[in-house]
């Protein structure tokens, strides 16, 4: 019984940490829906937290994420309450996790020309 319970906890933990979205979609959603209200480029935004920190922020339907970034812009607060946010959430999560603070990859926004 204990083994089953532990397996269930482990499974739920894995599901919570699962990144199933598309990081390229997440980058596009960030640009069009979050960049302006947050007034921050996507490459800088993703580097604010480590992978584990982002995963925690996105746990439980991104409860902590919404708390952390609400009150900055009314447009963003409206987005957080909408069905649209539920749609984009896995992709946004994939994007920030892919380019997190502890990752070597950087989201390329522009090359110096």
């Amino acid at each position: 019984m204990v083994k089953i319970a532990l397996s269930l906890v482990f499974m739920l933990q894995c599901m919570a940490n699962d990144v199933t979205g598309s990081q390229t979609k997440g980058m596009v959603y960030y640009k069009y829906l979050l960049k302006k209200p947050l007034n921050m480029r996507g490459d800088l935004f993703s580097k604010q937290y480590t992978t584990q920190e982002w995963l925690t922020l996105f746990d439980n339907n991104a409860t902590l994420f919404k708390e952390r970034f609400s009150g900055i812009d009314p447009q963003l607060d409206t987005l957080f309450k909408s069905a649209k946010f539920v749609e984009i959430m896995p992709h946004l999560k994939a994007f920030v996790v892919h380019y997190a603070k502890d990752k070597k990859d950087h989201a390329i926004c522009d090359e110096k020309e």
Partner: protein
Amino acid sequence: MTRRDLLKGLGTVAASSTLPLSLQAATLPKCTTGKKPLNTSNKTRVIVCGGGFGGLTTARYLKESNPALEVLLIEQNRTFVSCPYSNIWLGGVDNVSLEDLSFDYLSASIKYRYNLIHEVITDIDKKAQTVTTNNACYHYDYLVLSPGIDYDYSQLFADISIAKAVYTHYPPAMKPGSEHLRLKKAIENFQGGNFIITVPSGTYRCPPAPYERACMIAYYFKTHGIKGKVVLLDPREKPATKAKGFLESFQTLYRGYIEYIPTAEIKGIDLKTKHVNIETFQTKTLSYVPKSIAFSYANIIPPMKPAKLIDIAGLECNESGWVKLKAPGFESVTDDKIYVLGDAGGHPFPKSGHMANSCGHVVAKELGARTLGKTFDIAAHLPGNICYSMVNGTPKEGIWVSHSVSFSKNTGLKARSEAMVQRNKETGNAIASWYHGITSDML
């Protein structure tokens, strides 16, 4: 494994250079666990696995930095075919031929005094420090892995049979050789319609390649009167590199010949009806919407991962899937007697032939010094990159991007890029010089 077995294995070195694989040893010898195979000499042996830009450069310059080393290059292919410059051949520009892309390995091994065998690696034993091939087992003191990339179709198609069929009919041509020949034939035989090229998501080999390829194929269509259009499907919002230069070329040089579709996520392919299903982002609705695009031919380039040899060696990879290395050096975090360079490496460098060549120089100097009991300051000799792309054939015009690398203990390795996105003849002419220079540096 006995000394006799090993000598027998080494004795086939010369023969294996000329015999087809099917005529070589039928059995697959394994090193006996716990029994160290012997070297043929008392020299320190470095085995370099993979004869691409990184491996060839390392093999050559290791012998220069420490001539006393015994260097053995293991490469399964018998002919070196270059990926860089191949798009120019595909486009039929500047009379570039397949011969210009092809080199024999033997001349380089003779000229630069290292040993060469054409065998397939089946096992790497880190503890015993052995590399087992389809033919023999070799002891190493240091190992350099430069195996390149493999395709990761699982990110595109859940069904493996579809992935296999796509590879067979529409190979990516991001690994040199027969895939390129198939693509060249497809271009030459193209009758019209859509010629789809897909750009991979994530980090991939030669970031400008799909965009340069689009220009070169469009150039071929334009100059051969083919009523075809290159449809370039990119999951990004704009080209991964040299964006302004490529987009300007698409619009001005190839209007009607190239359709660039950004934010295109591949959702599936129907090989019978020849349709690629995608989703693209609509700025009006701020949503991804499905779309189906018909094609006459498709160059499907899937996401990439390190070559299988990295799995065989059991090396730890970073979160993005590439080999974790001890920055600023190239030793694996798993085993500091194993160096990894080229496209399989996890440093934040662009995956290009030039970068692999540059890293090969650094590894050769560092490992050469190490085997002589000396130290070498890698941070003071970091690699660099330049990446040219031909965008027009008549006149030859190109664009470029360069990368300089810096290192600090706090921030680690960083690559800073600078691009020349205004297409010009000088760059177009420089491409051939660059190519001949870099190939003569290692071949």
